[in-house]
């Protein structure tokens, strides 16, 4: 069953000199099934974050529409999806626990219920004992756990993750990937990852969409026909290696976005 539908989404930005517009996304269309983990890969600057922000309802598309669980996303009020940011975006004045409760406050949950829910997700992401710490007292990996718990806490139908592991070191990255995958499976969440790491995309997803071109659209869709858990054995299987080289080709064939004249969209 389709959980997320992205239909003919286009987006352009007015250039800061006011002369004309840069088209970033054009006619982006895809769906994500219930419980599916999809990854979007693409070269830097091609519009992945822009697409995710549109899906989260933070930025409106110029045209096209997004539905999550059958409901159209028009703004980020009462969000049906939750986003995990590349740069964590935690609130430095809030403790880990209060950061995790943030989305629940918007929903108007009473304090006691917020605390209970937050505690559940603190345990889930392995932050027990760090409830009262402020972000600046936590490591990058722990901060991203808070970001993840904050997103999970609002019980979203879909969780959107924008390069969630790119600001942590390689070891932390690997253990976070494992844990996040386990959490997603356990909670049966639908998830959309943005990444430009091919291995990460293969490790995590059921399906990989490659975004590219200028303006960008969905170029190719790859089914990842590999069993979970994707341990080292699976990751070096012939199937995985073939997929990897296909993805590499897809990434390389899509040139890096360059500033150039583009007609008004």
């Amino acid at each position, binding site marked *: 069953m389709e959980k997320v539908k992205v239909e003919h989404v286009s987006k352009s930005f007015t250039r800061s000199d006011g002369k004309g517009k840069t088209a970033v996304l054009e006619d982006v269309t895809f769906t994500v099934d219930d419980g599916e983990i999809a990854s979007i890969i693409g070269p830097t600057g091609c519009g992945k974050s822009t697409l995710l922000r549109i899906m989260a*309802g933070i930025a409106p598309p110029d045209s096209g529409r997004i539905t999550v669980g059958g409901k159209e996303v028009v*703004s*980020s009020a*009462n969000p049906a999806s939750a*986003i995990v*940011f590349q740069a964590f*975006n935690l609130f430095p004045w809030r403790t880990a626990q209060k950061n995790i409760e943030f*989305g629940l*406050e918007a929903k108007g949950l009473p304090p006691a219920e917020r605390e209970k829910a937050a505690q559940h997700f603190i345990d889930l992401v392995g932050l027990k004992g760090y409830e009262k710490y402020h972000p600046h007292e936590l490591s990058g990996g722990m901060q991203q756990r808070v970001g993840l718990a904050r997103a999970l806490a609002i019980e979203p139908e879909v969780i959107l993750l924008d390069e969630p592991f790119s600001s942590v070191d390689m070891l932390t990255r690997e253990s976070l990937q494992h844990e996040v995958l386990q959490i997603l499976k356990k909670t049966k969440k639908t998830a959309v990852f943005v990444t430009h790491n091919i291995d990460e995309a293969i490790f995590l997803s059921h399906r990989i969409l490659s975004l590219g071109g200028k303006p960008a659209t969905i170029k190719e869709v790859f089914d990842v026909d590999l069993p979970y858990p994707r341990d080292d054995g699976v990751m070096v299987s012939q199937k995985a290696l073939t997929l990897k080289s296909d993805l590499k080709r897809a990434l390389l064939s899509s040139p890096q976005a360059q500033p150039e004249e583009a007609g008004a969209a």
Partner: protein
Amino acid sequence: MVIQLLSYKWLVRIVSVVAFLVLWQLIGQSVDVTLFSTPILVVGAFSNLVTQTAFLTDLLTTIRDFAIGFTIAAVLGISVGIAMARWQTLEVAFDPYVSALYSTPYVALAPLFVIWLGIGLVEQLVVVILSSVFVILLNTFAGVKNMNKSYVETGRAFGFSGFKLYRKVVVPGALPYIITGLRLGIGRGFVGMIVAELLVRLDRLGFLMVYYSELLEVAPGLAIAVTLGLIGLLMTEALKKVETRLSPWRSSATGG
């Protein structure tokens, strides 16, 4: 660790105060009493002031009036500062006035306020408000403008909007700047008020201070000055406490 650090800080403070008082006493003793004074004489003068004049009532009135004026200035400065950062039209419309009014020495205008408003609570409040409101406003404005854009975006992404977004995200995000503005505002407002007392109102502690100095009574003059200094110190320290409570990630921000 923290406790050690605190007591270390207090140790240095106490030593510094004691050394200062001893030095003052030694120097004071060697100078003519009509020109200078000693801490012991100042303490004596203080107790005389308290027992023999309206010193305490005056002091409390001054503090009360200042508290009223400063509260109004804080509410005004913070809300207009946020509004100007939110609506560009307001920014464009108000900016020249704010910049001009910010650097106006209101104390020098106090005689005019007396002509317009007479001597009384209103004139007193106007001096305090005008002296402190603009520095609060400008710092609040800078705090909202310089705030990390991602805070607001994240607030929206998790379902906040409108007034609640301001309460939950914008105000706490700008708080280090706002507190800096309040701290500077306290200084400016309090000085403005005392100077207005000694220059135009000719009453209360400001005037009493000048009165004793002109009689060459250094000790009571200094007793009043030290009292006023201590009040300023107390207010600033209280604000610092509030700041470390509310924005622990950042002990202070700079701002004009």
